[in-house]
């Protein structure tokens, strides 16, 4: 029972990341019709917002390191600690949560610049050309990050108070040995809040209603005198923020490096395809479903029967789903079928 519960939790938190990235991808595709291969890079940029905030808060005074005698070396003491003592230490400790506030405007700006500067020129082009140009953009963003931050992962820890594990088993009346990292639980809750927020925004606001109407029938909405394009640009910005926030919160789980977006991108595209191109509900459902399946496929009991299944399970499910339901689990007719 413990083993099953822990795999479900693991699948949910992994699925949360997949769902958040896939949600942004679907928003972009459903509104603008753009297949954005740079979306993974936006996730990575979000994680580097956390890294940048951490580095900003730990700007330090250089003090000669007397313990090194062979050459001149310097220790660094953060100014925040020099000025504010323990309060400064606490602020540095909360770098990741603080960086959420920093990431929202930064990612919105990145999204707007990206859409106005490049993506909008490719609305009328083929999907193959969109893929090529956005993939190229992703590589450019990656290399810029590598130039400034290096290739090694940069540790970006969660606040001390949530750096340990939660006694999930004890709380549920199961084994005391069943624990799960606090931050992963927070990430799961955060994913749920963001996903719920995006759906609520689209469903309960006038803006969202117009966007949904535009996703279904752009021409008719335009004929009503509504500037759909402008709203779609804003949706692109929202998708960028969602990807960025997913990255910020993922930084303590996976020390950010310049390539982390690419690792998620391919899986997220599979999630979108399994969920159904253009279907927001499908993207979220497929994200969690594939996360859980991947987690269960990694159990030693499963791998003993089917060696290597953990490596292919997601692609296997994609093949089966596409054979049975060619438009994906919740795909809409006519999307990407021209």
């Amino acid at each position, binding site marked *: 029972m413990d083993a099953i519960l822990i795999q479900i939790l693991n699948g949910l938190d992994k699925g949360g990341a997949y769902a958040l990235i896939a949600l942004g991808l679907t928003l972009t595709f459903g509104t603008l019709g753009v297949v954005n291969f740079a979306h993974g890079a936006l996730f990575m940029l979000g994680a580097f917002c956390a890294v940048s905030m951490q580095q900003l808060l730990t700007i330090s005074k250089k003090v000669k390191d007397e313990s090194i005698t062979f050459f001149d070396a310097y220790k660094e003491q953060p100014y925040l600690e020099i000025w504010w003592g323990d309060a400064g230490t606490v602020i540095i400790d909360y770098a990741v949560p603080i960086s959420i506030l920093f990431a929202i405007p930064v990612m919105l700006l990145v999204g707007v610049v990206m859409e106005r500067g490049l993506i909008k020129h490719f609305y009328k082009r083929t999907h193959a050309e969109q893929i090529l140009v956005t993939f190229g953009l992703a590589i450019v963003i990656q290399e810029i990050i590598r130039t400034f931050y290096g290739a090694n992962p940069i*540790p970006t820890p969660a606040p001390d108070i949530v750096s340990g594990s939660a006694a999930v088993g004890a709380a549920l009346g199961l084994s005391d040995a069943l624990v799960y990292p606090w931050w992963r639980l927070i990430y799961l809750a955060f994913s749920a809040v963001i996903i719920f927020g995006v759906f609520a925004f689209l469903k309960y606001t006038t803006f969202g209603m117009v966007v949904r109407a535009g996703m279904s029938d752009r021409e008719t909405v335009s004929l009503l005198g509504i500037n759909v394009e402008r709203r779609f640009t804003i949706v692109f910005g929202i998708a960028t923020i969602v990807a960025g926030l997913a990255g910020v919160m993922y930084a303590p789980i996976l020390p950010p490096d310049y390539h982390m977006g690419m690792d998620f991108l391919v899986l997220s595209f599979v999630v979108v395809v399994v969920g159904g191109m253009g279907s927001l509900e499908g993207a979220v459902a497929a994200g969690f479903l594939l996360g859980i399946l991947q987690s269960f496929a990694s159990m030693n009991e499963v791998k003993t029967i089917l060696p290597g299944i953990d490596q292919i399970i997601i692609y296997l499910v994609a093949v089966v789903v596409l054979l049975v339901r060619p438009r994906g689990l919740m795909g809409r007719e006519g999307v990407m079928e021209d």
Partner: protein
Amino acid sequence: MSKKDNSQNNSRRDFLKASAATGAVASSPMFFMKNAYAAENFRNAPKGGSVKLGFNVPQTGAYADEGADELRAYKLAVEHLNGGGDGGMMNTMKPMSLKGNGVLGKKVEYVTGDTQTKSDAARASAKRMIEKDGALMISGGSSSGVAIAVQGLCQEMGVIFMAGLTHSNDTTGKDKRRYGFRHFFNAKMSGSALGPVLKKEMGSDRRAYHLTADYTWGWTQEESIKETTEGLGWKTHKTVKTPVGAGDFSQYITPILNSGADTLILNHYGKDMINSLTQAVQFGLRDKMVNGKQFEIIVPLYSRLMAQGAGENLKGILGTTNWNWALKDAGSQAFVKSFGAKYGFPPSMAAHTCYVQTLLYANACEMAGTFYPPEVIKALEGFNFDGMGNGKTEYRAEDHQCFKNVLVVRGNQNPTSQFDLLEIVQEVPRSQVEYDASIFGGDLGPYKV
């Protein structure tokens, strides 16, 4: 008659004398110009006043930071070979044939290549440096897959390969090559060095769970560490292969939680090791008590650059390393001083091995009196030296593996500086890590290709 006979005898004697003299005169240049016979007959034989070396390191990709440190070391080595800087280990290496005027009087130049930590890209860049740039020797690499691939190419092309960071047993085992040389230690030596320390600190009754990077280095490290721990009486609970660059290892860590294993051995390196260790700690493994024992994590291959990435999570964890900047011997101090003065921070073990390899190659050319690869290879084979940071060292002729002291280290609990990330637990003597060259098989191949 007798006169005639005498005349005939004299004539024969004169002929023999003349033949001997002619032979002596004809061969004398070869005698005085050692090995010069082949001087013009090998690939990229240096012409003019310079000799070109090719440094093939990861300049992009996951190991780019390590590659950058290797490149710094190569540049420093070239500077020292050409008589610049403070000379670094050229002041401590024994025996030393180099004079600080390049190699065999020729100024050392270099070209660089980017391996991208991919075997095919590494082979392509090495081939380009050999064919287009005229590199006489190739050195570098931060992955065993890359090193083995480039070593094979160098054997085919008759160019010496001085391996950088490669830890797989295969590099000087089943995939060893006559033209390939490794100064770095290997997984077998890590196991031999770690064994007694593990027994002392963790006892002889443990259940080990391995997470292993799924490529040549991971396989051989798992095999060697398993052999060591089972020799101590430990049981191997499970060995699980993980894809290189998996990123999120949580799906491999969660099955460990209730497996009954009390020790996790991470056969991961670089980014994978940073991620898997960070996540293992997040899942509370280090706080667990299993089978009445504190759960322990072991990282058999450490580097300081990795320690920086893993941060706090590495504190207290045991592993091995080829070299550490905190060593107090004269060679290490000379190198750290040179490197630190030039770049402002101490060198990594990858930088150390690359620097040493460059000097060893140059010294072998001086010893051989030629750049002709078969003669340089013979000079390196069985070469005994000291003053390079690991005590008395031998380049074993049978497999081209260097044998020297190995360091068992622990993530430093109380660092005194930002670089003081690894605490040296023990400097394991060379005799403890030596093994029979035949155990891994393989064939060096011919001197002439």
